[in-house]
């Protein structure tokens, strides 16, 4: 089954990005595919390569990048939300790209399931 994931919140402040990541990783382990994850509202803040969290805790931005690298997950950051919050191509971590809200709508149309994680 193809799962789409919508992440509405940024790293650390809310659990949403963590829960979404563990859901995505588990879905892939169970043989499903997660073709795309869409980051909206403060969720765009997951995409920064500039985060340097403490070494003894997870790196939220980077582990999405690793999921993308290992399993071909397309990490899409909403352009309008990104512009409001100062996220542009210069600061993106690997695996993320900035694109339009149409990418989210397509997920709803094309995939079997779309799950929202937010506040």
């Amino acid at each position: 089954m193809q799962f789409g994931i919508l992440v509405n919140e940024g790293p650390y402040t809310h659990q949403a990005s963590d829960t979404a990541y563990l859901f995505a990783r588990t879905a892939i382990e169970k043989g499903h595919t997660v073709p795309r994850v869409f980051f909206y509202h403060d969720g765009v803040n997951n995409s920064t390569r500039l985060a340097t969290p403490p070494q003894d805790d997870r790196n939220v931005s980077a582990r999405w990048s690793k999921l993308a690298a290992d399993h071909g997950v397309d990490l899409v950051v909403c352009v309008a939300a990104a512009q409001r919050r100062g996220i542009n191509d210069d600061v993106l971590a690997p695996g993320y790209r900035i694109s339009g809200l149409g990418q989210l709508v397509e997920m709803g149309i094309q995939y079997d399931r779309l799950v929202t994680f937010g506040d």
Partner: protein
Amino acid sequence: MSDMDDMDDGSGVIKKFMFLNRKAPHGTVYALEGLEVVLITAAFDQDVSMVFTDDGVFQLMKGIDTKGIEVKDFSKTYRALEGYDIEKLYVDQASMDARGLTEDDLIVDVTVLSVDEMANLMAEQDVVISF
């Protein structure tokens, strides 16, 4: 509107999309950015419903004046939805009652649903996007 036809994903699939709005405007960004998703969805010829429950009903208030808080007033955008063929706006009766609101207080025409009607509407959707 013709340039928006380019955004059709080409598959011919029509799904029931429901946008769930439960939060008041301005205290958080979700009302504004949620509306932006709905406007984009209009270009995809899907079966779109917008549902306003709990504090979400406040998004549709008449008489909004944001000058004093110096933020964009996007309330008139709800009236523009009809021009985008987004006409199914549903409001929860109980949420309105709990907030002392009637349809006359709202900036657009809506369909007011009982809890059972709204529950059934939600249950029949293909895709629910929450903000």
